[in-house]
């Protein structure tokens, strides 16, 4: 497993560098930030001073060398907009997004498993139809609309919840409920589909015929086998959320990374954008490894694959002469 991890880390370092270089170059191609930060009647002299002060008068490669030199010393530059350290701004915003994303996903998965399994018990039954309607609706409602309607109903009309902000635990409810809809809807569909096919497998008949209870059949036999496809989809959905839930963060005033990235793009705040992109790229990379590990835990068919992979790697050379042997054994 450690070898596997090491390989993953090495092979992911390159994409990370490519992403950061890409963002670095593309961001600068969108134009000079000077006019955003200087008064509208700024003179040529002031523009030049601004460029010199922020190193924007250097050629792109020189700026890049300078930047990566800083990154190696963990200096990610200073925000043009606020004058703060870009790394500090990104690190401050990220936990807010992470908390929101993880809580949302855990709730979405738990609810989707319950609703999806319930629907799969009697395909095309009344429960299935309700679940399918609800999940389709949940997956297709635009989140900005849902957020505004949620505020209108629960904060203004009923007065149960705060409109926005991060002040109290009640203020988590609307953002999470809004954010949860899409993953929940998608996951219900996946869980239901996987459960329907798992429940029609012969091993379920066998389990039933040996007298296993309904609960046991569902939780231990069917759900376990249905978990892999659900995990794949859940992983993708989580990656999307960690990237920042821009709409929800913006509407509810949630100080997360998605809003920070959008703001720094609009404000051409390059250092902050780069720091935020690097941070989310690392997080997504870690998440992908976790998903792979979870796969191995879930599905026995995946585990031998990684074990075989490890065996093959260590005795690389001795294997070659032994090559005919397995064939012979197989024939025998």
């Amino acid at each position: 497993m450690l070898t596997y991890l090491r390989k993953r880390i090495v092979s992911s370092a390159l994409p990370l560098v490519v992403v950061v270089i890409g963002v670095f170059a593309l961001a600068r191609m969108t134009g000079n930030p000077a006019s955003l930060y200087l008064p509208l009647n700024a003179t040529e002299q002031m523009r030049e001073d601004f460029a010199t002060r922020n190193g924007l008068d250097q050629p792109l490669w020189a700026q890049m060398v300078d930047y990566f030199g800083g990154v190696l010393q963990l200096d990610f530059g200073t925000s043009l907009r606020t004058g703060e350290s870009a790394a500090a701004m990104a690190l401050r915003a990220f936990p807010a997004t992470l908390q929101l994303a993880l809580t949302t996903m855990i709730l979405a998965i738990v609810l989707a498993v319950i609703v999806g399994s319930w629907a799969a018990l009697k395909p095309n039954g009344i429960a299935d139809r309700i679940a399918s309607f609800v999940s389709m609706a949940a997956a297709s409602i635009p989140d900005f609309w849902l957020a505004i309607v949620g505020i209108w109903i629960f904060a203004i009309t009923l007065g149960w919840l705060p409109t926005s902000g991060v002040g109290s635990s009640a203020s988590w409810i609307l953002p999470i409920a809004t954010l949860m809809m899409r993953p929940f809807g998608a996951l219900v569909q996946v869980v239901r589909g996987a459960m329907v096919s798992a429940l029609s497998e012969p091993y379920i008949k066998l389990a039933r015929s040996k007298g296993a209870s309904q609960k046991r059949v569902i939780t231990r036999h069917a759900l376990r086998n249905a978990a892999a496809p659900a995990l794949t989809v859940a992983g993708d959905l989580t990656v999307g959320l960690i990237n920042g839930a821009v709409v929800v963060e913006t509407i509810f005033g949630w100080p997360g990374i998605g809003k920070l990235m959008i703001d720094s793009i609009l404000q051409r705040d390059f250092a902050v954008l780069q720091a935020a992109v690097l941070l989310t790229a690392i997080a997504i990379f870690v998440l992908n490894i976790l998903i792979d590990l979870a796969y191995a835990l879930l599905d026995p068919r995946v585990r031998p694959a990684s074990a075989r992979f490890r065996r093959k790697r260590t005795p690389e050379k001795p294997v070659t002469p032994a090559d005919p042997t397995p064939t012979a054994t197989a024939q025998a």
Partner: protein
Amino acid sequence: MTFEPTFGSTDKTGSTRRRLALALTSATVGSTMLLSGCAVANSDNAEGDANAASDTLRVVLQQEPPTLEPCESNLTSTGVVDRSTITEPLVERNPSSGELEPKLATEWSSEDDTTWTFKLREGVTFHDGSDFTAEDAAHTIERAVNSELGCNVEGYVFGDDDLTVEVVDDTTLTVTTAGADPILPLRISFLEVVPSETSDTEKVREPIGTGPYKLDEWQAGQKITVSAYDGYWGEKPAFPKAEYQWRDEGTVRAAMITSGEADIAMGLAPEDQIGDLGVPYPNNETVALRMHTDKPPFDDIRVRQAVNYAIDKEGIVASLYAGREKVAAQLVPEGIVGHNTGLEGWPFDLEQAKSLVEEAKADGVDTSAPISLIVRNAQFPKIEELGQVLQEQLTQAGLNVELKLLETSQHLQYQVRPFVEDEGAILHMTQHGNQAGDAAFTVGQYMETDGAQSAFGTPELDAMIEEANAATGDERQSAFEEIFAYQNEEIVQFAHIMHQTGMIGKAENINYEPNSSTGDELRLAEIKPAQ
């Protein structure tokens, strides 16, 4: 789910399942801990807010201030918190009367409009307890105007020329300009005073000022809290505490007022469903189209006149803006020195517009040349609709207009010199806010031949502007009036559309009358609980 007693002991997958269950549990617990940690850190929950309402004034802004650096407080998002709340200037312009009033300076005068003497208020202290003296005032000017700090206010109000500052004694200061400048005190009103210890090589994010409120805490991304400063030289403000939050969405800001979570909400539009709690005020913003005359068809004055005739300003104001805005005939609204009350908006006359275009065409002007109507996304309410209406009306007059909706940074390339080159004729939608109260801040930038936001001018107009800038009193007023009339008759660089109205949301338990500068400086000390 309940576990059966046989769980795990018989089959091989039991240990895996336990691990998975453990992983899930720890993930849930972990995130719950994160959650509760956050909740504990902000233990003043909804309940606390309700109780606090009586002594804490809650303001919701459009955005988090990028910084509270006083020398950037000409930027709306910074100034709205700083100005006359945390920090104070030497002199302050009364937004209603336009007169300059004493603040940290009690009187000021000049013999020759070049050297100005300021008498400073005694008994003023900064929030750190130190005394305010002429040294601090001099340092403030040096720091903002003469240093290498790159302060936004420097370019905005002072340009390239440095000021010579001299401390005469503890309460007397002289400021000398390079040339005669009759409105130097007005320019000085943009400088928020900081203590002489403030760095002039680095900007500060959290200022120390002399204002009625001192900065307590800035929870980045969440809120800024201030409290009344005990040693304040003036009248004690009504609210002992205040807090600022920020929300991007107007509907959410409005909802915070209607649900009782905030007392004042900035930057609302009637579409935000604020109802009776919305309070309109003139915000000194004017919307106009600027025609770049370097390319056909705008190089012909008849086409520029046709654009003015083709726009149904009354119709736009009535249908898009429900009659809130006022049809404009010049770049500054009433209340600004130099506003010409005699000017009327161009009448809507489509036939006249058509025939002017035809006439120009007959004389060889390429009236079918593509025109880009440059509009900034979300710059003000219903701007996209306005762009579409204008495109349609100009097309009817026989022009070939394409609407381009751009984001701020791209839009600026069309707004400010050097203008974008590789484009057809440019028709730029400009929103101009004159927050200084004097037309000098408008005409120099928008009408002079090489003004930063001017695309056309003549030597005659430049001479008129130069003369007006140096004039004082009634002469100044009429000199600028003449300039605005001259633009409409001889220059026609602009097709003016409307003077705008701003709106704030105000809870019922609050007593506050917004004025034309509210959007740029919300003076918390003027806000009181309703009786």
